[in-house]
């Protein structure tokens, strides 16, 4: 159930803020999340400011890639550009660092997914430069 070689919308980095460090790390197989330096709180998706303090004192740190399924949906009717992937699983995964990420789940059948199940990071290589974070059962 890998999406390799199936056409789909590619991420367009650096559109709403400087996400260069995030995407550079993905190509090295590392998932980065933002931290507010002053409060120590993580946040995801990346924002141009700390959601806690309203200051721009932010840094990137690598996540462990361990998490649990918060919720999921089996997509039977594709979002435009994903028609060739149907059916596919979308999920909200809670990372152990304390943030929630929207992602795909692979290597599991829809009827076997359970809320709360442990999952680990899995990289989908989309192009030579771009990899996208997904999750598989731990």
């Amino acid at each position: 159930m890998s999406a390799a070689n199936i056409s789909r919308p590619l991420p367009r980095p650096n559109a709403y803020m400087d996400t260069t460090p995030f995407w550079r790390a993905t190509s090295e197989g590392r998932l980065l999340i933002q931290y507010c330096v002053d409060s120590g709180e993580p946040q995801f998706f990346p924002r141009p400011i700390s959601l806690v303090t309203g200051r721009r004192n932010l840094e990137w740190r690598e996540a462990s890639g361990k998490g649990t399924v918060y919720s999921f949906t089996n997509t039977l009717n594709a979002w435009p550009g994903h028609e060739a992937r149907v059916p596919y699983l979308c999920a909200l995964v809670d990372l152990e660092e304390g943030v929630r990420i929207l992602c795909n789940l692979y290597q599991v059948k829809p009827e076997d997914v359970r809320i709360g199940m442990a999952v680990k990071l899995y990289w989908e290589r989309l192009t030579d430069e771009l990899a996208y974070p997904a999750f598989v059962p731990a």
Partner: protein
Amino acid sequence: MSTNKRKDIAIIGYGETPVVLRGGRSSYELAAQVMEQILVQTGIDKREIDGLAISETMSETGNPFWGVYMCEMLGLSPSWMQLNGLGGASSIGGIARAAAAIRDGMCETVLVLASDAQSSGKTPEQGAQRHEFMYPVGLKGPVGAFGLLSERYRHQYGLDERALAKLAVTQRNHALMNPNGCEKLRKPLTEEDYLSSKYVSTPIRVLDSVMVCDGANGVLVTSTENARRLGARKMIHPIGYGEISNFNGAARQPDITVSGFSLAGPKALRQAGMRPPDVRMIMPYDDFLIALIITLEDIGFCEKGKGAQFVLDTDLSYRGTLPLNTSGGQISAGQPGLAGGGLNLVEGVRQMFEEAGERQVSDPRNCMVTGIGVIPYGRNWGVSNVMILEQP
């Protein structure tokens, strides 16, 4: 119970176009139809309108001057103009803002207008984080987001599909009596039809959600004092309002089954000096059936997680103890794009003016109307608002 209920603001007229699928008429033309209806209905001279609160639109939103263009199109020169980008929360949000502007002397008589030919146009790009953190995953827009929400809700509380089926059928039965409802949806529906409806993004089915159409609607708002001067034939009053945008916006891992209605609902009720059992009828924003269950719970009609039981135990038909979306709601009358937030509002006003024909609710002494807007990243919805309307 402490209350700061006021009846100094009045809604004195309403208008609505039929909801049509790909009608091919612009948002401007649809809006013109609504304004003409309101002027004819109230007998008020167009020059009395000195304020415009207008909802954002999918079909014309590429034009950053949409509101002022609308003034030009309709021949209005308002001293106060407000463009509301709260999605389906924009119409009652527009009434609340109009009330504040009237109280502050910025204008006297406000047309609160929503018009969208979304099904005849192209949906604009919302941009921001979507190209990096949403589109590559392929979550199917609002349907996918409500799939995630429903699955989580089911995990925490269980999800009795009989309640969803009952809501689908109740609203459809109402739509069958609504000549303005979308023609394509005006056919009977059974609970079995709902329960055998195909999944789109599990556990969301085709019949859980809306069909995007074209249409427009609006109401006329002024001070009660000015309404009397104008000789308004009928009036009702907004007596309670609550609103929250980007609910739980800074929470890292919020409980997504709890919505902004948990704040906006109690606030509106407190202002009105009412409790949920005092509500005669409710016109809640319905983009998905499960949103109705969560809305009822979070406003306080029942305990959290007991919404399905409440639906099963309550007669929600126009003859019932808590009539709900008596024109069919957006799910069965069609969603006129971002004007959808005005659909259930206008039905509430129509019921309170006792002009709802064969679906008229008896003793329409008050009505609660709600709005929902915007699907954020990984949560339920961005904007929740609640307005309570009451007779003089």
